[in-house]
């Protein structure tokens, strides 16, 4: 019976992935992408990876879906002159000799089919290594937390998590560089909507509390810095969409501090541990629990700030572009 659920979920995920890529309209693609992420999250719950499921549903499906939805506004709801362009592209495609496209397509299908067979065989025959479960289980009491995934993320492999904070910050800087750093100046004008204001008033405390709960609960169960960060980032996005962009309301240094505090605290802590004769991120077992909680809180603040800033920056790009189009018209 449980095998049936797994098979249905697997078929659903594959079907949604195919539909997502072959949907004729971009709007359908984005909404099917939401559905695909949620199907994958269910698959992860079935595999016993609840942490991964929360992260997937929140970041990969939720946050990224929001970014795509935001991008849809300039791609699919483009001004009419875009349609002429599209038709030109289509007609040039149609007039292109169909035979010249047939051979590459055949080669692509053959190659993909062959690759699929190889991948299936490789996955089927992955040797049994035993994994690191036993090692993690043996060291769990020393890690300062009870949940094995949190222990690995923030204690055993803290180095990875530290660098990951750096990657997120780098992603933010890269989007800044692409868009040009002229954001956070003037707050976007949003009509004063009673419903929107009520939604913000209602959801901000709920999201904040739920995030804080997930953060603290990460000690003993599924949850932790990333899951909490997405919920807190959602507050920032909600406020931004409601015409109260967080980064233009708080002083500049505070924004910069909240973006870098996770990475910075990790770095300073690692430095002091090294200076004290331990290896990098080798917490003394007596203080490990407290240290992990502090790191998680600061990391969550940093990630939430970075997600908000990425969204705000991409959203702002949209505004500038529509302004440009209006001015050129």
């Amino acid at each position, binding site marked *: 019976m449980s095998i049936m659920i797994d*098979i249905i979920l697997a078929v659903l995920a594959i079907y949604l992935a195919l539909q997502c890529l072959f949907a004729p309209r971009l709007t359908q693609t984005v909404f099917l992408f939401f559905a695909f992420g949620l199907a994958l999250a269910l698959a992860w719950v079935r595999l016993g990876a609840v942490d991964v499921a929360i992260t997937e549903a929140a970041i990969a499906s939720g946050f990224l879906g929001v970014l795509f939805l935001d*991008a849809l506004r300039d791609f699919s709801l483009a001004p009419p002159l875009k349609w002429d362009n599209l038709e030109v592209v289509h007609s040039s495609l149609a007039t292109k000799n169909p035979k010249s496209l047939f051979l590459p397509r055949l080669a692509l299908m053959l190659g993909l089919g062959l690759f699929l067979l190889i991948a299936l065989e490789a996955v089927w025959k992955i040797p049994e290594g035993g994994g*690191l479960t*036993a090692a993690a289980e043996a060291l769990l009491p020393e890690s300062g937390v009870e949940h094995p995934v949190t222990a690995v993320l923030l204690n055993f492999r803290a180095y990875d998590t530290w660098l990951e904070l750096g990657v*997120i910050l780098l992603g933010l800087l890269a989007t800044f560089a*692409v868009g040009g750093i002229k954001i956070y100046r003037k707050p976007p004008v949003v009509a004063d909507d009673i419903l929107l204001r009520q939604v913000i008033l209602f959801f901000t405390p709920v999201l904040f509390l739920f995030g804080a709960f997930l953060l603290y609960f990460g000690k003993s169960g599924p949850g932790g810095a990333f899951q909490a960060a997405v919920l807190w980032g959602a507050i920032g996005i909600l406020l931004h969409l409601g015409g109260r962009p967080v980064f233009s309301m708080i002083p500049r240094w505070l924004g910069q501090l909240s973006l870098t505090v996770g990475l910075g605290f990790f770095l300073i802590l690692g430095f002091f541990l090294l200076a004290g004769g331990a290896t990098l991120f080798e917490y003394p077992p007596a203080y490990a629990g407290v240290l992990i909680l502090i790191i998680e809180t600061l990391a969550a603040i940093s990630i939430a700030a970075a997600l908000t800033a990425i969204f705000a920056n991409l959203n702002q790009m949209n505004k500038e572009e529509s302004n440009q189009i209006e001015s050129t018209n």
Partner: protein
Amino acid sequence: METYQIYSLTSAVLFVIGMGGVFVSRHFIKKIIATIIMGGGVFLVFVSLAERDALTFADPVPHALVITGIVVAVASAAFALALARRIYQLTGEESFTNDK
């Protein structure tokens, strides 16, 4: 057939679907989504093998790697999206064309 076997086979299929999508789809957003589907396939292998190696709990190391990986994938996808929108902003094109 075990649960993890179903999902590890699914992961190979998802990876190939994503890879085909990267080649076939024209629009920037579809290409980015295709790479994310590829990534989903890779993550699924990790988690299904973690389930295979479970003792009292599933292997936490692949779980931690996948959580890290998801966040990094999202950061890079956001960057790709910023690039795509900038290209669209500057040239008005929404896919790679060889015409010009």
